[in-house]
């Protein structure tokens, strides 16, 4: 495996008895990017993160983090993680919880105050964690990740429990990390969130990586929306045009996967055939549309072709 990848999995599989949680997964996170890992519940995201962090062992294949094997002290030293809702010792203060984490990470106590300051918990650091809100725990988890000053941040649903201001602040945090040259692997259910901050995304379903592309590539060059009468005849004409990959019927209109610069050509073909075109415009696909289409979840567009 090339050492240029911040994180790379090679034919990574994890079986729990007869259940295949991950199936020969090959995923690459490049240095300095924000990689969004998305997938439905039970798709294998958490299993993947556990394997990356060395909490579980792969059935086959392996994971490398900046050239180091996952789960080894050298590999863990380079990852800061906030996995699910961060867990802390409720009877300890936020400061003491970070002291414990820092001791195990091999970092000095001098890093604690700046980490608390960075997440806005400097004035609550001496309070017991049992009195913290979910959002404060999430921020303390992030402070714990900062302690090691790692190269790779692994954030699993980091906006869980955060209010809108907190979510916006988390977005800023991620952008700031990237500005500092860090790499971020973000696992989230919030597709809009992923769309906003991620450079590339990987869609995982039934333990398989269905897609790994930039957000722009995923959304495609665009598509055309056509409202016309009669619609079925318009669809048939569109399907016959060369270079058209797919024609979908959606909400009383056609969605046609084609370069939007061919709008005039399409319009001409329809009008020539006597079709009455009431609307023809370029539309971009949302990440949600691509996600639903790939994972076959309810709500996916009806495919005509």
């Amino acid at each position: 495996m090339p050492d240029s990848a911040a994180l790379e999995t090679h034919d990574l599989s994890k079986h729990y008895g007869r259940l295949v949680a991950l199936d020969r997964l090959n995923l690459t996170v490049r240095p300095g990017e924000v990689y969004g890992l998305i997938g439905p519940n039970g798709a294998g995201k958490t299993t993947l993160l556990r394997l990356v962090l060395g909490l579980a062992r792969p059935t086959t294949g392996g994971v490398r983090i900046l050239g180091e094997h996952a789960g080894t002290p050298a590999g863990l030293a380079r990852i800061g993680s906030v996995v699910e809702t961060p867990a802390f010792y409720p009877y300890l203060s936020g400061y003491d919880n970070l002291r414990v984490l820092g001791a195990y990470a091999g970092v000095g106590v001098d890093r604690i105050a700046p980490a608390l300051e960075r997440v806005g918990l400097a004035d609550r650091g001496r309070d017991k964690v049992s009195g913290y809100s979910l959002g404060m725990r999430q921020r303390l988890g992030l402070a714990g990740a900062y302690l090691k000053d790692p190269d790779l941040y692994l954030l699993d649903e980091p906006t869980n429990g955060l209010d809108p201001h907190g979510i916006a602040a988390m977005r800023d945090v991620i952008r700031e990390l990237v500005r500092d040259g860090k790499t971020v692997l973000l696992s989230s259910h919030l597709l809009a969130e992923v769309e906003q901050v991620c450079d590339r995304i990987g869609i995982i379903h039934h333990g398989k990586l269905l897609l790994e592309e930039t957000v722009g590539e995923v959304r495609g060059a665009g598509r055309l929306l056509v409202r016309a009468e009669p619609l079925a005849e318009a669809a048939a004409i569109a399907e016959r045009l060369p270079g058209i990959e797919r024609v979908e019927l959606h909400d009383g209109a056609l969605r046609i996967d084609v370069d939007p610069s061919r709008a005039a050509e399409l319009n001409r073909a329809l009008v020539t055939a006597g079709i009455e075109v009431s609307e023809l415009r370029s539309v971009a696909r949302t990440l949600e549309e691509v996600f639903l289409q790939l994972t076959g979840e309810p709500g996916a567009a009806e495919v005509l072709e």
Partner: protein
Amino acid sequence: MIGAISAELLKLRKSWSTWILGAVLVLGLLLLGYLLIYVLVQNPPPGDRGAQAGIAALKATLLPKNVVPNVLVFLAGLGGPIALVIGALNSAREYSLRTITAILTQRPSRLGLLGSKVIALAILLAVLAAACFAVGVVGSLAVSALDRTPGSLPSIIEIGKGAAASWLILGAWAALGFALGMILRSTGLAIGLGLVYALVIETLIGALGFGLAAFENVSRGLLGRNASALAESFGQVSVGGGQAAINPPVTAALVLAAYVIGSLVVAAILFVRRDVT
């Protein structure tokens, strides 16, 4: 490693459960091992000469010369289950709170983490054993002064041996609790099953051992019976003689050490090999 041990000690020091269990142990010794018996011997029930002799023997257990067996017998009894709970909490609580994930994703190797927890636990048990002996010394000197009975403490070597034996007894119980916590990954289940073993199964097998040879052989390997055998090797403090020691002291110490090693090996194998879910 030193940083990790100090982190474990910090967790133990700041946990209420440590202080409560420690207080139960130390105050239990003071109340049940000294105060209650002192009140009883000062207000003896009317009885025949046999009963008077029993009271006199009971009073003798409170004197400074008997501090080592008195403390050890208490620790082999009530101390065992308390140490078991401390051990179970030390391992299983990481799973119950889900903090095991946070710690393991820092940098330690699994064996390094386990080693830090065990060393911190051993330090805590040493402190508790020392605190019990301190209470025993103070309690016996107080009885001696109140009763105006001259008495001297055993030699420092004898007290040291007793403290080491008490550390081994507490350590064996705590190691069993620690292993149960690792096996079951649930605080409640580990403590519950551990106490069932300590208070019910050991008693049942011990009782059956008096009538059946097969059970007698089994009871020679019981943790509690060997803890009692080791404790009583420092001097008999039970009124009326109590049960005969199940094993000679060296054998009893070896059985307890085997419990410590066996429990920690099982805990280590499971901790290193199993996925953290």
